[in-house]
C-alpha cells in the first residue's frame, strides 16, 4: 500500500490574538507559532497506521517555502518514508485549484494506491484541494472521511455528515480521501524524533520539474484572488463582566438564578 499525503504548514491562530498585516491581504504572522495543519496530522497518522499494518511506503508532499521543511520533517519523524517539497516563485498566489494542479503533477511522478489530504486547512479553509486532485487525476474520492477499512483493492469509508450521522461508501482504489479530524490519535513526535530525521533529504521540485507552465500556476492559474481581509463585524456583542474572580462569580451566580432557574 503506497500512500501519498499532502500537507501544509500553517500559523497556529486558535489561541492567538490575530491582527491584520500591513499588506491588508493577510494577518500579521510575526510572533505566531507554526505547525502542521491540524487535519493533515490526522491524514499522516492514518497513512502511517495503514503502512504499519499492510506495508508499503508513505510519501509526504507539501507546496511551500523552506519553512515547510519543518512540517515535512515532523511527518518523517512520525514515520513517513519520503518527503517532497514543491516550490517555485511562480507558485506564489495559487488558490485551491492551482494548488491542486501543482500537487497533481507531482503525484503523477509517484506510484500510489491512496492519496490522503486533510479535509481543509486551518488558514484559508477552502476544503477544496483534495477533491479537485481526484478530478485532475481521474480517480474516485470521498471527503470528510472519519473511518476507513481496507478490503483488498477497495476501501470502506465513513463520511461524516451533519448531526452525528455518517454515510458509508465502498470505493475502488486508487482514490483520494480527505481526512476529518478525530479519525485517529496522531502520535506524539519528540524533539529526539525530529533530530533523527534532521539529515534526511527533502527533495524539491519546481514548475519545470513538474511540466507546468507559468500561466497554469500562481495567480495566473487561479480562479479566485483575495482582495483584502478585515476583522469580522462584532454584532451586538456581549456584555463584558469584569472585576475580581469573586465578583465575577457573584454575577455569574445571579445570571444562573435569573435565567437558568438555579436554586
Amino acid at each position, binding site marked *: 500500500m503506497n500512500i501519498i499525503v499532502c500537507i501544509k504548514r500553517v500559523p497556529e*491562530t486558535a489561541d492567538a490574538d490575530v491582527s491584520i498585516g500591513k499588506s491588508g491581504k493577510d494577518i500579521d504572522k510575526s510572533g505566531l507559532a507554526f505547525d502542521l495543519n491540524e487535519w493533515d496530522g490526522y491524514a499522516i497518522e492514518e497513512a502511517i497506521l495503514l503502512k504499519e499494518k499492510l506495508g508499503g511506503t508513505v510519501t509526504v508532499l507539501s507546496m511551500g517555502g523552506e519553512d515547510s521543511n519543518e512540517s515535512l520533517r515532523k511527518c518523517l519523524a512520525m514515520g513517513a518514508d519520503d518527503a517532497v517539497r514543491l516550490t517555485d516563485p511562480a507558485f506564489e498566489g495559487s488558490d485551491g485549484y492551482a494548488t491542486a494542479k501543482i500537487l497533481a503533477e507531482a503525484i503523477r511522478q509517484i506510484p500510489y494506491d491512496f492519496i490522503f489530504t486533510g479535509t481543509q486547512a486551518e488558514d484559508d479553509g477552502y476544503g477544496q484541494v483534495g477533491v479537485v486532485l481526484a478530478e485532475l487525476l481521474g480517480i474516485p474520492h470521498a471527503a470528510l472521511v472519519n473511518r476507513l477499512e481496507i478490503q483488498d483493492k477497495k476501501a470502506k469509508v465513513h463520511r461524516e455528515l451533519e448531526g452525528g450521522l455518517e454515510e458509508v461508501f465502498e470505493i475502488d482504489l486508487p482514490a483520494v480521501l480527505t481526512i476529518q479530524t478525530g479519525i485517529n490519535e496522531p502520535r506524539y513526535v519528540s524533539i529526539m524524533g525530529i533530530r533523527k530525521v534532521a539529515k534526511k533529504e527533502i527533495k524539491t521540485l519546481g514548475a519545470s520539474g513538474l511540466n507546468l507552465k507559468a500561466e497554469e500556476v500562481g495567480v495566473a492559474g487561479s*480562479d479566485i484572488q483575495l482582495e483584502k481581509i478585515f476583522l469580522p463585524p462584532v454584532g451586538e456583542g456581549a456584555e463584558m463582566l469584569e472585576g475580581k474572580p469573586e465578583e465575577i462569580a457573584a454575577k455569574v451566580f445571579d445570571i444562573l438564578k435569573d435565567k437558568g432557574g438555579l436554586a
Partner: protein
Amino acid sequence: MKEIIVLAEHRRGELRDVTWEMLSKARQLAESVGAEIGVALLGKGVNQLAEVLKPKAHRVLLIEDDRLEAYNSETYEKVLTQVITERKPFLTLIAHTAMGMDIAPSLAAHLKIPLATDCIGIDSAGETFSLTRQLYGGKVNATVSFLKKGPYMVTVRAGAFPVVEKDALPGEMVKLPSPLTDEGLAKRFLQYVEAAVGEVDITQADILVSVGRGIKEADNIPMVKEFADAIGGTLSCSRPVVDKKWLPKDRQVGTSGKTVKPKVYIAIGISGAFQHVAGMKGAGTVIAINKDPKAPIFSVATYGIVADLFKLVPVLKDKVKEFRQK
C-alpha cells in the same frame, strides 16, 4: 434569460435548511441582476420535495432516477455536468456542507468553472461577483474576487444567509432525463450509520457547561465537570475535545454534533468557530469565558468574561457552592 441554479440538498426524504437559505440568497441576486432561479432536485421519488420547492424558484429542474436514491458524488457529478452544460447558468449555488464539500470542487474542476467555497457573502459586481469568506477559523473575513469570466460556482456556508419570505415564483416543473446508466461506479453508497446513543442527552439540559480547546489537557476536564455539577449543569464540549477523545461524541455541540437550546450555555475555552455556534445559537443566555478578547464567541454571547479559565473556573465553582448554601 440568465439563470441561477441552486442545488437542493436533501437527505432521507427531507430538504435541508440550507436549501431555503440558498434559495433566499438566489432570489435577492436574481432580482438585482435580472435572472431567474432554477432549483435542481436529484433523487428517487422526490415529487413531494419538488412541490414544496416550487414557490421558491422559477422552475424546478427535476432529475429522477433509482440510482439517485442516496447522494453519491459520482452520480451527482454526471447529472449536474449535464444540467449545467445544457442550461449554462451564470451562477450555480451549492451548500458548503458534507455533501457540497464532496461534490462542488470536483464538479467545478470537471466543468472548468471557477469556484469559491464556503462563502458567507455574495454580491453581484457587474458580470461577476464579490465574495466574502472567513479565514483562520473565523478570526478574519476576506473579500475574494473571481479572476476568470463566468459561469461561476459558489458554495454557501449553512446559516450564513437568512430565509426571507417573498411572493411565490411560478415554479414550473421541468423534468430532465437522467444520464445515468447501469455502468459500474467506482464509489458505491452502502448505508447510513446513526450516531451512538450516549449516557446523557445534552439536548435536554437546562444548563450546559461546555468546554473547548482552551482546556489544553484531558486531566483538566474534571475541573469543569465539578463546576458543572456545582451549578446543576450538564457537561458538553466543542469538537476538538471529542477529536482528542477527551469526551465522547454524544457530548459534542455543533454542526457535526448536537444542536442544543439550553436556558443557559456556558462556553469555557471555546473560540466560537461557526461549526460550534451553529449548534448553540438557540440558547437563551450565553456566558463565554475566553482569554482572547477577540474570540468570535464573544459576538454571539450575552455575557463575556476575558479570563484565564484555569484561574477563574475553580473560583466560580467554590463561590457558587457557597452562594447556594446561603
